């Protein structure tokens, strides 16, 4: 187990190195000059040249990359061209907010998909099951920004139950727990609905598979209560692929919440990355991409560890 974990962790820097090279090349290959965007068209060539030199942008590409990656290895992700702030301090500000939103979305996905998946499997091929399937199809089909707009219209504008924005705002921090939590609800639902659909489908099919196993007949033959049969004997087996998938999807979430953060004005990583892309803020794009990739990698490792934890047959 620990040796396996060690092997997996050793791979992380290697993957990140590849990711760093790719993002570096992609940012440099796309048109647009960060300095020109920052300073505008009417600046003197001297000022632009000075700024380029300041960010090493005047050096050849291999050297630029080498200088940057050497710093990254020491934990320094450089400075933002646009905001003139350290990328690491930008991260420290924004990562916790994005993580909170991702966690809220995942919590929503888990709370909905576990009961839904179990009920759909138990009431297979009945109208309850079809209703659940309909919901998951909708979750797959409606893009999260579209869903976000619908939710905003219904819950925030028509019903006026929940705020649209306010995550990470001063009012939210100053108010009580409800003031803190309420702005998360609509974006978390908009963000988590796709994961809800994925996880419901997965749990339904793995539950159906488990319910047809011989050991389920044994459990019934023991005269156990239906709740014990379903929760202890069936769900514990069906949760193995589910938990793994949930961990992978959580790693995914940080990367895909860009649009949601933008729509709900969440001061998280997604909106920062989006701004950085628009402004060709190379150090921010590179640094944030690296962190998102690292997060995804760790989520996958956690998924594999959970697999071993929940399935006694698997030992690394």
């Amino acid at each position, binding site marked *: 187990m620990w040796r396996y974990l060690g092997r997996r962790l050793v791979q992380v820097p290697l993957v990140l190195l590849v990711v760093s090279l790719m993002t570096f090349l992609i940012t440099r290959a796309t048109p647009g000059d960060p300095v020109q965007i920052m300073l505008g068209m009417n600046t003197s060539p001297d000022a632009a040249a000075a700024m380029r030199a300041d960010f090493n942008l005047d050096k050849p590409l291999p050297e630029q990359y080498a200088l940057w990656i050497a710093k990254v290895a020491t934990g320094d992700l450089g400075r933002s061209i646009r905001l003139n702030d350290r990328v690491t301090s930008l991260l420290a500000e924004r990562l916790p907010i994005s993580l909170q939103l991702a966690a809220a979305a995942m919590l929503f996905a888990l709370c909905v998909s576990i009961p839904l998946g179990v009920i759909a499997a138990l009431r297979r091929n009945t109208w309850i099951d079809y209703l659940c399937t309909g919901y998951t199809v909708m979750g797959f089909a409606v893009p999260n920004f579209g869903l976000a707009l619908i939710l905003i219209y219904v819950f925030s504008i028509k019903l006026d139950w929940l705020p649209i924005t306010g995550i990470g705002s001063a009012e939210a921090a100053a108010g009580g727990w409800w003031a803190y939590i309420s702005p998360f609800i609509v974006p978390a639902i908009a963000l988590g609905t796709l994961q809800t659909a994925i996880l419901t489908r997965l749990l339904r099919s793995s539950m159906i598979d488990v319910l047809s*196993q*011989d*050991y389920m*007949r*044994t*459990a*019934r*033959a*023991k*005269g*156990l*209560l239906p709740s*014990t049969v379903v929760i*202890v*004997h069936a769900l*514990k*087996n069906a949760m*193995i692929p589910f938990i793994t998938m949930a961990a992978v999807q959580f790693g995914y979430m940080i990367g895909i919440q860009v649009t949601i953060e933008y729509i709900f004005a969440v001061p998280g990583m997604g909106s920062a990355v989006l701004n950085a892309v628009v402004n060709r803020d190379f150090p921010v794009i590179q640094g944030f991409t690296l962190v998102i990739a690292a997060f995804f990698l760790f989520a996958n490792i956690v998924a594999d560890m959970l697999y071993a934890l*929940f*399935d*006694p*047959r698997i030992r690394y």
Partner: protein
Amino acid sequence: MALLSVRNLYTSFATDRGVVRAVNGVSFDLEAGEVLGLVGESGSGKSVTALSIMRLVPEPPGRVTADSIAFDGVDLLRLSEAQVREMRGARMAMIFQDPMRSLNPVLTIGRQLTEVLRRHEGLSAAAARKRSIELLEMVGIPMAERRLAAYPHQFSGGMRQRVMIAIALACNPRLLIADEATTALDVTIQAQIIDLVKRLTRERGTSVIWISHDLGVVAGLCDRVNVMYAGTVVESGPIRELFHRPSHGYTLGLMDSTPRVDEQAGHRLRPIEGLPPNLIDPIPLCPFLPRCRVSVPACRERPPERRTFSERHWASCLADLAS
């Protein structure tokens, strides 16, 4: 009074291609302490008969009807699901064919044993644990205390079937149904398991229904045999009488296709030709007729009738196999 008395059991399953009549009017009695064999090939309705008695047939698609399934004087078909649950695992228990797949892979052996004790006997966690260790020792599992924390995949097939037996006998049931309990095991382990079941059930006076397609296993274990074909019992009798005087074409076919220890060199096994009938279409005559090699002209004219040879030996066959 018999411990179990089944009268006119019919079990069918609704499928896309029609209603499959898996069990067609099975009746039999099982005395306290008696070991009854249910013999027949795959699809003959042995397992479905057992599952119907345990009320483990999923309804729908299944449908179980009977004049009565009286267990200890109580008609199981009249009980609610909750009432049957109180009996399953406590007063009637079952072990299944594939011990590899009949134990839950993610629960420890200890959990799977103690849960049935806690459910039916109301034991505390500590008492259930203590009793589980005794049960594992009883079925011959060494270092039982340490084995409680193990998972099924850490056990061999024979060991797992021993665990299944421990679970089934945990609450001292009056009836044990073993559905092909040794089929998936190799021959030496088979013999051990059969001996174990024999010894434990005899000690406790447990009645046993032993389901097998293997006449040899049944011969060594059972007091009486029901031979099943196409969802009906075609012949029934005490084991000796049945072996000395097989009185149904199918029983005869089964015996001719089973190797014997005492047979002479050069004796050839005779397989039963053909396939069992499909159970969707109604079968007006003897279901075994198309495959029977001792049929008489009357077989093609009227359904078979029951002929009695001794107090407990009868067969539904028109051919006179004694001559």
